[in-house]
């Protein structure tokens, strides 16, 4: 009787697993079949498939002027998604819908000016959409200042709204009770972690409060937007150097404008070293103040880009292998890597916050005898 009961429970517990396994297997088969069909259409030429994957990855890494969820047919230019507004500054503000480009297929005509998409960038061109090249094969067309609401900008908006909503609600919940409620239960330990293990040890109890707002915002912003990058929506915000540059420059500006006398003294006139060394050290230290945020920028950008490239390459390998061993293997590898990327998403947010706190800490460090 007892044994029967146990096996019953066991089979009950295993059932969902089998269901999941079957589901995944079907999905895998479907992809495989799809890949084979695709392989046939490209007349079995492996090189072209590889280039296609490479192009697809390259395309994924770039920002885009329309929100494409997926492409039905590349040749017929059929995409599922919606266009986004294009805002240009070219002798006056020009606003139009990105649908005018037809996914880069056609030239958009606005107020007598012609614009075309060239590698995801808007360039000024003539009615035929001619791209002029210099000897290094660089486009010489004029690039107007582009303030378009691109896919990435949409996601920056979304994350900003999400953060305002989430933390606004959390802040309100404290008015009725001293304990956090709802999502605050999850977020409060993270906020406390940033305060107690990042801000206070690096900046010190005296000054940490004025930096808390920035540290918390930057941590949650990077984390959430990195996590969104792992969803099938195909967004990839932090792999844009412009985004990480904006974040790094904020860290740099905050460090520079909150720095005390002691900080500048250590840069321009290092105490307790010979005069000659003082002179040598000054430019090095000054350069260091720029290199520090620069490293922040590159680190976040490179880590997220590398993660996406590797993950997508492994996914692409599935279509190259096209057999029962290689494809599931690369699927398993991609799954494991996705888990790793989940960790990287949080880790990069942590590192950015941690190092920013470290730089702020050095900016407000009190003078003490060495």
């Amino acid at each position: 009787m007892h044994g029967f009961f146990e096996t019953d429970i066991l089979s009950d517990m295993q059932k969902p697993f089998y269901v999941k396994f079957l589901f995944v297997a079907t999905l895998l088969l479907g992809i495989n079949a799809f890949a084979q069909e695709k392989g046939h259409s490209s007349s079995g030429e492996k090189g072209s498939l590889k280039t296609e994957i490479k192009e697809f990855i390259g395309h994924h890494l770039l920002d885009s002027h329309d929100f494409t969820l997926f492409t039905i047919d590349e040749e017929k230019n059929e995409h599922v998604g919606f266009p986004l507004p294009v805002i240009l500054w070219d002798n006056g503000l020009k606003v139009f819908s990105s649908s005018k480009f037809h996914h880069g297929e056609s030239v958009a005509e606005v107020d007598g000016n012609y614009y075309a998409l060239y590698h995801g960038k808007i360039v000024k061109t003539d009615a035929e959409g001619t791209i002029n090249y210099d000897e290094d094969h660089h486009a010489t067309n004029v690039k107007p200042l582009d303030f378009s609401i691109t896919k990435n900008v949409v996601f920056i908006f979304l994350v900003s709204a999400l953060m305002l909503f989430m933390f606004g609600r959390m802040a309100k919940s404290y008015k009725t009770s001293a304990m956090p409620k709802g999502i605050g239960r999850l977020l409060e330990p993270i906020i406390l972690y940033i305060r107690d293990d990042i801000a206070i040890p690096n900046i010190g109890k005296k000054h940490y409060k004025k930096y808390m707002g920035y540290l918390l915002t930057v941590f949650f912003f990077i984390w959430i937007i990195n996590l969104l990058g792992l969803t099938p929506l195909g967004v990839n915000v932090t792999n844009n150097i412009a985004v990480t540059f904006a974040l790094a420059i904020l860290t740099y500006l905050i460090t520079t404008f909150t720095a005390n006398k002691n900080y500048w003294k250590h840069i321009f006139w290092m105490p307790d070293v010979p005069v000659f060394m003082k002179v040598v050290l000054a430019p090095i230290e000054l350069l260091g103040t720029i290199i520090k945020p620069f490293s922040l920028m590159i680190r976040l950008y490179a880590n997220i880009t590398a993660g996406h490239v590797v993950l997508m390459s492994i996914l692409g390998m599935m279509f190259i292998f096209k057999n029962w061993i290689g494809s599931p293997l690369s699927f398993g590898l991609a799954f494991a890597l996705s888990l790793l990327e989940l960790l990287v998403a949080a880790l990069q947010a942590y590192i950015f916050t941690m190092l920013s706190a470290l730089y702020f800490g050095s900016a407000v460090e009190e003078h003490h005898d060495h």
Partner: protein
Amino acid sequence: MEKLIEQFSFGLFFWQLLLFIAVLILLRKFAWKPILDAVEDRESGIKDALAAAENAKKEMQNVTADSERLLQEARVEREAMIKEAREMKEKIVADAKELAQAEADKMIKQAQLAIESEKKAAVADIKNEVATLSLEIAEKVIREQFSDKAKQMKLVEEMIGDIKLN
């Protein structure tokens, strides 16, 4: 590096900076400040409560020690009082005894004096009686002498014998 610079999108940079600063300012005012304040309030509340509990515990210990001390003092005082009372009792008894002794001695002395004086009076009485008796005897002897000489003699002897007996 060249590719990075080429890829750099000023528009994206602009939006990122603008939105991030806006979010930063809004969150600072409406989220981080109230959240951190609430958490800090709670933490200081917990700290205060713990300190208060510690104080109460200490006070309790003090009170216990105080009462213990008071009890001890009371015990000592009680013992002292009992001792004093005992001593007083003994003193009173001793005094009373002494007084009684003195009184008794005095009474005995008085009694002795009275007995002495009574004895003296009695002796004087006896002497008087003896003298009277002697006179009576002498009178009777003298009368008998006048009637019978022998008889008188006998009588004298009898009288003397009587005296001796007395």
